[in-house]
């Protein structure tokens, strides 16, 4: 739905709308449903989400392990025979321990153990919950805040626009990873106190808020431009001429026209934010132990990279698969709703 088609569907009587056409939203939904790639991606993404939601079930009922306590002297069963989870290292100088590798047996360390003897598969599922949660919630916050700020800047113009635009410019020009890393390093040690609310340094809200803040301009800037051009269009001018209040014009005319763009950005932002979270966690300034995310598991696997690569490879694959499905879904939503919407760099 471009802004052109929406002119044909003003906030008129619903009876007339029903007679003339199915409406832009329903048309878009039908287009999206016919998009095989997008639908398959959505299916895989939902499977990943479901699997991660079932993490406690897997932990207790299938693997019978505890994903968050180390199991240094434990044993497990491989091919019907008991064997230690952590065996003395057989390579190099024979120092340290080597965790058990993948057994491909869902009941006993399917993907092996990490350096502390914890079940990698169970941690993968628990970590996925945090990665998806942080990606999704921060994308929602970023898109929500960006919509409010972008629309306000574009619609009201003047000083508000000047201030907000400069602010976007600054955050935009700030290398994203540097900004995220700087904020994380500072806030991790002390937590964040805003008025009466205090967020602990190891809270998941910290990465969520940091990532949301740094990506606001990515969405707010294109939205501002869109609203700016809408502002001069006849149907908005007609609303102004009819004496409609700003709030009414924003709600009835502006918002319905920018919503498609926001919806296109949402899955793309979720993928981008999840990747950013994983990078921060990989640098050990994102999700804090004992909590896990896919990024922290990759970090856990660093020391084992050459002996037990699965600890590193599996979470990376999960990130890649999830991000690919979200990006493909985003492409589908874009071609159904708003072919012109673009995130910086992402084609």
């Amino acid at each position, binding site marked *: 739905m471009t802004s052109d088609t929406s002119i044909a569907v003003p906030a008129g009587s619903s009876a007339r709308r029903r007679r003339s056409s199915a409406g832009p939203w329903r048309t878009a939904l039908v287009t999206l449903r016919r998009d095989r790639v997008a639908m398959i991606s959505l299916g895989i993404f939902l499977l990943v989400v479901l699997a991660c939601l079932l993490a406690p079930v897997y932990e207790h009922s299938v693997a019978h392990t505890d994903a968050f306590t180390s199991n240094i002297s434990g044993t497990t069963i491989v091919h019907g025979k008991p064997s230690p989870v952590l065996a003395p290292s057989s390579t190099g100088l024979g120092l340290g321990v080597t965790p058990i590798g993948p057994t491909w047996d869902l009941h006993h360390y399917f993907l092996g153990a990490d350096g502390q003897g914890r079940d990698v598969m169970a941690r993968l599922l628990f970590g996925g919950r945090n990665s998806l949660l942080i990606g999704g919630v921060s994308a929602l916050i970023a898109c929500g805040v960006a919509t409010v700020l972008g629309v306000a800047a574009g619609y009201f113009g003047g000083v508000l626009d000047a201030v907000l635009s*400069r602010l976007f*410019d*600054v955050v935009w*020009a*700030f*290398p*994203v*990873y*540097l900004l995220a*890393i*700087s*904020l994380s*390093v*500072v*806030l991790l*040690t*002390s*937590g*964040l*106190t805003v008025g009466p609310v205090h967020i602990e340094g190891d809270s998941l809200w910290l990465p969520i808020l940091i990532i949301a803040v740094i990506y606001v301009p990515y969405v707010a800037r294109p939205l501002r431009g869109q609203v700016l051009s809408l502002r001069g269009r006849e149907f908005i001018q007609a609303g102004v001429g009819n004496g409609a209040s700003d709030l009414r014009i924003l709600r009835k005319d502006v918002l319905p026209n920018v919503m498609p763009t926001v919806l296109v950005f949402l899955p793309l932002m979720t*993928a*981008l934010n999840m*990747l950013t979270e*994983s*990078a921060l966690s*990989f*640098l050990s*300034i994102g999700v804090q132990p004992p909590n896990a995310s896919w*990024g922290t598991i*990759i970090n856990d696997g*660093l020391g084992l*990279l*050459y002996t037990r*690569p699965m600890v*590193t*490879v599996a*979470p*990376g694959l999960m*990130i*890649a698969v999830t*991000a*690919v499905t*979200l*990006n*493909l879904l985003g*492409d589908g939503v874009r071609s159904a709703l708003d072919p012109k919407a673009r995130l*910086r*760099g*992402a*084609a």
Partner: protein
Amino acid sequence: MAMFIGRRAAAAVFVLFTISVLVFLIFFATPGVDPAARIAGRNADPATLMQVRHEFGLDRPIPIRYGLMMEHLFVQRDLTSFVNRGALVIPQILQAVPVTLSLVAGAAVIWMVLGLLMGTAAAARRGTALDPLMMLLGVVGVSIPVYWLGEVVNLLTQSRWHSGLFSWVPPLGYVGLSQNPGQWALHLLFPWLTLAALYAGIYARIVRGEILEALNEDYVRTARAKGLTERRILIRHALRCSLIPVVSLFGLDFGALVGGSALLTEVVFGLPGVGKLTFDSLQNLDLPVIMGCVMYAAFFVVLANAVVDVLYAALDPRVRRA
């Protein structure tokens, strides 16, 4: 045009100033953050804290501290590290810059060449298997965590296949270009390929899209009517005009990479570039080094943005009036 460049430069300076203030505030004025406590170490007694605070000038008002730091960074150029007392910040950064530039420039050459070749080929053979392949490459490129790809590359080239296929791959690290150009390229080859793999697909997709759009233009019809060959039309007419948005995107990506996005690649491959320096200084909250690195990084990003805008204005006079 001169007016436009002047205005753009003023805006760039303003953004740089704001970024420096922002970074300073993040590290010195975030409620609850006490740099002195970090410098003095855990469980330092109040007297030591007071002494540290005084020694590092942390007991003075924030605007004065900001002014002093900027003076040491830009005017006297003798800003020293908080952690390694006496170590000058600017030489450290200058030493790290060639590493980052080598990494990003090499990767950029690879991804531009690959992107242009693949994109043009896909546009010429649209509707064939090249199209979905290109799309997949682009999507995978934006979806893979770069540090993870680097780890997997390390796993294959340094361990798993190191005794066979990749026995010629040197250990992780960096060798200067002037020291030994051959080793320089050999050490950087896999970091280059890793970084380029993320961008080649997206660029190919963009080039393809732009060419297809250009092929619908009137001037292409004119060229066909003149009897030019399809190959000449594709390369001399359509591709050339498609390069404008590609080059502008390239400027932004290049600036962002040199200005910090290459950090993860540097950390994974053990390259002592600016990203690694920034990361190390962040780990021990070495504020002067962080400040220097971030200013350096922001400078590149802002410069890239400004150059792109000016280039755009040079190409399209309408932009100048905006």
